[in-house]
């Protein structure tokens, strides 16, 4: 993967950053807290994906550096798509764009059943361990039609655009944040 943009850290280097005590920069890998730039509430099961994504893409393109905006656009689409596809229809889905001093990220929150939360937790762990390998596995599974369905979206977010994923669970409420340095 030699053609990777230097501004997009590889999974290996991010893992190395996370494990090398003293080399972690402020904000890397931490739960993103800060100013909410925008917050959109979507009805579960609705067709909100395309126009919400278009809005967030336009907003980030106007407010953030080009490369960062592109990365967050992919993150916003895939996180929201997952929430709309797999979230509970009994509660709203919330997508937020959040910035701190050093970081910026997109967070999607939705309710989910416990089996889905377990699957998500396991998948994120795999991505954290080796995002590139997981991305390739999901690509291969998309050829063979794996069961359960290939989960290429989060693998893209982690490997392709190099966003750090963070999962928070509070009972049935799930929040997934994809963030990078500003």
């Amino acid at each position: 993967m030699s053609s990777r943009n230097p501004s997009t850290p590889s999974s290996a280097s991010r893992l190395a950053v996370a494990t090398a005590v003293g080399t972690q920069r402020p904000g890397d890998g931490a739960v993103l807290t800060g100013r909410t730039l925008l917050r959109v509430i979507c009805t579960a099961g609705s067709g909100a994906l395309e126009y919400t994504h278009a809005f967030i893409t336009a907003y980030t393109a106007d407010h953030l550096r080009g490369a960062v905006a592109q990365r967050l656009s992919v993150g916003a689409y895939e996180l929201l798509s997952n929430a709309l596809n797999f979230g509970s229809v009994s509660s709203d889905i919330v997508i937020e764009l959040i910035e701190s001093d050093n970081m910026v990220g997109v967070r999607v929150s939705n309710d989910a059943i416990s089996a889905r939360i377990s699957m998500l937790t396991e998948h994120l762990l795999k991505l954290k361990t080796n995002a590139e390998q997981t991305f390739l596995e999901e690509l291969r599974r998309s050829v063979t039609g794996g069961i359960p369905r290939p989960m290429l979206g989060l693998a893209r977010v982690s490997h392709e655009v190099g966003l750090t994923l963070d999962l928070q669970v509070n009972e049935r409420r799930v929040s997934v944040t994809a963030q990078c340095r500003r």
Partner: protein
Amino acid sequence: MSQFSAVQVPKAETIAIQVTAPNQVKLSGTITQKDPANDLAGFFKALHTAAVSDRLSEVRADVSGLTFVNSSAIRLFVDWATWVKNERGHRYTLRFVTSRNVTWQKTSFMALMSLAKEVLAIEHVT
């Protein structure tokens, strides 16, 4: 007559598609619809079938102007590469023309290359 250039181009809201004889297809815009296979899977399959019929040595798929695609669209490119790889008759090289300035293209096509390197070529522009 070239069957490749006679392939009917689907109408899709966010994508502009141009097929040029003898072997080039150019896609630009974005692919954001939930299931892009409805518009594009049949089109890609028709291009593949035509390329085999025309006994083309190479098909150039210029995606450099595709600024955003969702993961379902990436699966369509994987499918196309798989059809070429599994082709028992005439096999051609599927050359993706990509842009260095579009983030998603850098890693996706490199990964795709690792799955079907015997039939794929990647060319970078800009």
